[in-house]
């Protein structure tokens, strides 16, 4: 049975089996390759997307569970890299290999949506589950601080 949900503000339907993981549905069937596969078991955060605004691991989320709900991926964070975090990421030149960064950004966006001016401790505790092998953590923290400083309006676009 096809599953219909909202992806980055648009309705989509997938005929993948309901027990397929959202990660692979997004990547291989819906062409949204910005959400990355890092571990497949909820341990690295590379696949972080928003489900009705909350960060979730797409690698552990079955397609049937998103029926009728709203998914936002990195492609939906902004149309043109205009999200305050994306701007800050570029200013701070955060990414190295870049592979973890979609997950980092989506996790950070959910933080700023709920808490526009997080302390450093709040940033670290919110971000700690998203691994970066290249060691960009210091710049991630600085970029979130920069984005929270410039960002008076709520940061997330996904409620």
């Amino acid at each position, binding site marked *: 049975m096809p599953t219909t949900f909202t992806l980055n503000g*648009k309705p*989509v339907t997938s005929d*993948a*089996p309901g027990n*397929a*993981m959202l990660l*692979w549905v997004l*990547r*291989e*069937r*819906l*062409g*949204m*390759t*910005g*959400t*990355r*596969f*890092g*571990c*497949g*078991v909820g*341990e*690295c955060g*590379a696949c972080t997307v928003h489900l009705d605004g909350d960060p979730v691991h797409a690698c552990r989320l079955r397609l049937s569970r998103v029926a009728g709900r709203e998914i936002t*991926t*990195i*492609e939906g*964070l902004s149309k*043109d*890299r205009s999200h305050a975090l*994306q701007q800050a*990421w*570029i200013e701070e*030149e*955060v*990414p*190295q*290999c*870049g*592979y*973890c*960064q*979609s997950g980092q*950004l989506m996790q950070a966006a959910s933080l700023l949506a709920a808490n526009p001016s997080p302390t450093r401790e709040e940033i*670290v*505790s919110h*971000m*700690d*589950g998203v*691994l*970066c*092998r*290249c*060691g*960009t*953590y*210091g*710049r991630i*923290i600085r970029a979130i601080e920069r984005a929270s400083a410039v960002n008076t309006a709520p940061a997330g676009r996904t409620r």
Partner: protein
Amino acid sequence: MNARTRLPSPEGHSSSGEAPRTPRGTCQSRRTFLRRAGGGLSFALVFGPAGLAARRTDSPDILDALVGADAPGSRPAEHPFGAWVRIATDGQVLIYNPAAEMGQGSMTALPVILAEEMDADWDRVRIEHSPVEPGVYGRSWGGGRGRGGSMMTAGSMAVRGYYMNLRLAGAQIRRVLLDNVAREWGVPPGELTTGPGVVVHAESGRRISYGEVAAFAEVPDELPEVSEADLKSPADFRLIGHSVPRRDVPAKTDGSAIFAMDVQVPDMLYGVIARAPVHEARPASFNEAEVRGKPGVVGTVTLDYGVGVVAETVEEAFAARDAMGIEWAGGARAEGFDSVAALGAYTGIADGESRGRPLSERGDVGAALEAAAARYEADYFNDYVYHAQMEPLGAVASVNAAGDGAEVWAGTQAPDMARAAVARELGVAVEQVTFHPCYLGGGLGRRTMADYIVEAVQLSRSVRRPVKLIWTREDDLRYGAFRPMSLQRLTAGVDSGGNLTAWTHTVVGDGRGLLASGISIGYYDIPNQRIEMRGASHGVRTKHWRAVGHGPNKFAIEAFIDDIARGEGIDPVELRRTLLGGSPRGVAVLDEVAEMAGWGAEPPSGRARGVAFVERSGTLAAGVAEISLDETSGRIRVHRFWCAADGGTIVQPRNARAQIEGGIVNGLSTALFERLTLRGGRVEQSNFHDYSILRMSDMPDIDVRFIPSTEPPMGMGEPGVPVAAGAVANAFAALTGRPLRHMPFTPERVLEALNG
């Protein structure tokens, strides 16, 4: 698809000065367009929302719409100026980047070097991966002049190895531009100068842009000879030494950067491989009929060390793999291997009478030890370490119907070797293999191997359709190729004047050159030295891992130096300064980090500092770690890390700092967390829950400074790694009086050290 399938090169790839939202490119972009050469059938590869339709229903309309927007005719003509550069009549300059981009920034740093000498306007420069032609775009291993060689990105060699060649190439192009303008204007070339993107005749006040010159320029087949005397003085650099934004960054903030894993081609299938749980074991049998009967399965392939399955969807491929029920043949070398026991047995090998392979020998160590007033001896241990690059391995391959050509998309540190390996596998000439280098989601040395690329080709060949090969994290970890575990046994003799007169270092392990790197200490003035290696053989796959043997060896060396300093009652910085007496550069680096860290001043209460000094890839680096310890849990916390480095000319300072910082993070990660073990021949860990890497909450504040220099650039990618563990171990000893001699310093080992 066949080997002649081509992208509509060179238009429409990669990044330009305007940094479009979707930098286009073979693998670097959001969209890839393919066109079947000579056939009526054409198709679009569309990533993004349009990909919805494109994967299953290839639409010529989409192709026309997309290619039309970028049709070659719609852009100004581009003129080649030698192998590295094309200049368009509108002034846009295309520079080829020969190196892999795995986050180390070479894709920007290398074109910067060339652009500097040709005086290109950086805002008009766009960058593409060079063709995979090592004879043209390779470099020599020594970093010397001369065309061609290796395209491997490894050993912190990209900037270092290409620096002079790219400067000379830039100067040649500038010469061609000047000669053409001189001819056109009838003025002596000596009266012309250049500014970014323009040739200027000061006397007449005339200026002409590079694009305008390109329209009439005659470019000789062999560019004119230039020498180092024709190069800019560093004082005139506009780009080198002045950080320019990395070109790959924007696409890495919106998900549009393309890694091999993201590539989709029409008609593509999915492949996974069940690899031997014991490295190199052969499959004896599997449920072939059952697997082939599973939904979506298109084929199975028996490999030397596993069985692959190809299916219509990812889900079907994984499900089929679960049903394989492979029986493995016995006899693999690693069968029954127990890494903990084997590491323990290294002590016996070190004790043994039979001498190993001498690595370096100086003076008379035996006599010096005999005469020493004090002797020191310690054993250091290192566990296996896994690369854990964030993107698991994988590749897309499309072998043509005849089986005599292929197209491959992969992220690799050695595209030339990978292309050759694919050609060998197919038994064809390399020209039959079209290779698209993608961004690498990290390399750390693992991606110098082509195993995962050849596998994709093997799967595609068996079904004669394009296949995306996926390695899961478990595959990647268990069939990894690890930094070898090792024992370092060190002895030293100190004379009655407190001088270090004798030094021996024996490394034991299975990994040959991987163990030897970083073991020599030529920069320390110790008159009598003997360094040797004793081998073991386990049948476990091993490979270069960022900074290679420097990680384990420098840990042992630097921790041992501190042992001696403590024994002799000498300040650790002071002892190193004495040992570095013959190296003013080394002393400067050491003094710089001591100043940064406020060495000598009391650290905050409950904390202590430790120092380490290393050489890697020509760069000298010194680090200071400031740590505290939770004595109940045994957990070490690193609060601060200061690093000073002399790496010669720093081409991209901001990026170089990020490289050193990333190296330190990897070094700390191996010092504190990373540990891979085998039991019964099988790797015991499987994913990040039992193979930990450093997280944000473990991250110290890191300060990095470079010693100003106009010497040629040295490596930046690796020196941060080896400086970390020794500094942490030395800080621990300063805090507790106890040494840490087994990396990683897990809480259990820390408690053992405290109570032992």
